[in-house]
């Protein structure tokens, strides 16, 4: 079961998920749940791929222009709910 999404924590692409580049962005396929998601913007794909390098989701979002952060935060929450991204191992939920 997926834990609630906590932007204060570090997340990463689920190792069970493959990203397939597409003209619009990427298609994400989860080998465990056998579900597809569509990442509909190239910079969202980049954000998801690079998520593991940031200590928290908020840190990762800070690299984006302010106007897009809210939209991508919602996109990441949806990806977390679908188990496409998962908390980094050992990342603590304490601030």
């Amino acid at each position, binding site marked *: 079961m997926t834990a609630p999404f906590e932007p204060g924590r570090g997340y990463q692409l689920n190792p069970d998920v*493959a990203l*397939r*580049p*597409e*003209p*619009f962005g990427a*298609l994400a*396929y989860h*080998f465990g749940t*056998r*579900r*597809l*998601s*569509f990442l*509909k913007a190239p910079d969202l794909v980049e954000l998801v791929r690079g998520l593991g390098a940031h200590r928290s989701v908020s840190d990762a979002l800070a690299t984006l222009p302010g106007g897009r952060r809210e939209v991508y935060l919602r996109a990441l929450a949806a990806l977390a709910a*679908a188990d496409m991204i998962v908390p980094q191992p050992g990342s603590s939920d304490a601030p």
Partner: protein
Amino acid sequence: MMTASCEPVRSERVPALVEQFKGGLAAPICLTWEWTYACNLSCTHCLSSSGRRDPAELTTAEMRSVIDELRAMQVFYVNVGGGEPTVRPDFWELLDYAVASQVGVKFSTNGLRLDAERAQRLAATDYVDVQVSLDGASREVNDAVRGHGSYDMALRAMENLAEAGFRDFKISVVMTRHNVPQLDEFAAIAGRFGAQLRITRLRPSGRGADVWNELHPTDQQQREIYSWLVDHGDRVLTGDSFFHLNALGATPLPGLNLCGAGRVVCLIDPIGDVYACPFAIHDAFKAGTVRSPGGFAEVWRSAPLFAELRTGTSSGACRSCSAFSSCQGGCMAAKFFTGLPLDGPDPECVKGHGASALSDSGRSGLPRPDKDHSRRRAVSMGMPSVRVPAKPCDSSPLAVTE
């Protein structure tokens, strides 16, 4: 987001996505791959006119190299069909190879090989899904289309799967005039086996063209299917095949509402020919072959037919119709094999435009599939053929002879 295979995308943001899909994807997300034309049954509505094995069938080595290509293209799963795919002697070996290559398989079967032992092995294999065909919730209705003994065979396979603990396997029903009244019974059968019901549209493809007039649902039944799906759609799969019914009400059926042919969908047939969709085995929709130097990837990326399908917006007579945005003109293959223009109404257009176009076009000179593997005469295997042409040419001037 969607479940694996050709099932509708259930997302609030579908419209923008559909626009993206129209231009085609880097690789299909809904690839049907028919592994053989050989079949133990002779269903009257078989969309691939299956029966006899084609001597030019892809070899085991060729099948493996297509799987390698699919892996490289990140095609994460395929829908395997036929014919009856399990009659290939290398079926289980290829299944294991695909799964080990991270190409998941959902295969369609009439149940022939699904004995208790096999069901247990399948239940223990990750990344495989099974779809058992059943076209009647009663023996009488099913066997009239699929042949004597086919109902019992399918039910036995389902029992074996359920007993082995295979959860959520699919029961796949082609909707006909005779089984629309059985929708609730199909759902009950699925419930009994812990399976998921999948209903799809009867197409006038393959031998389906011969029986389409008698078997396709009536206008009233189309409304029943639509309403039933609106009520039960969350738990029932449709392969996105009823989008032509969307104009019947305010509630759109879940799905892309888009002909995916050559864009997100295609077919590889048993001899490696690539078609725009599983319902269009005809030269007009043949994009190439996996046997050509660039293989499947080259066909998917560069076939002129696919390029055309990805740019073309069908319009014509339907453009001015108020329902065009709901039904998008319907199914290309259904129009083609009933002799209707591709930019005109679907033969089952819910506004009745198809029916009037059909009565104008007549039945003579309809396009026939470019391959017919129907058995030449009934063979006695306990499954007598319903369709008994003395020579292939009796049923089609274009019949392929071996």
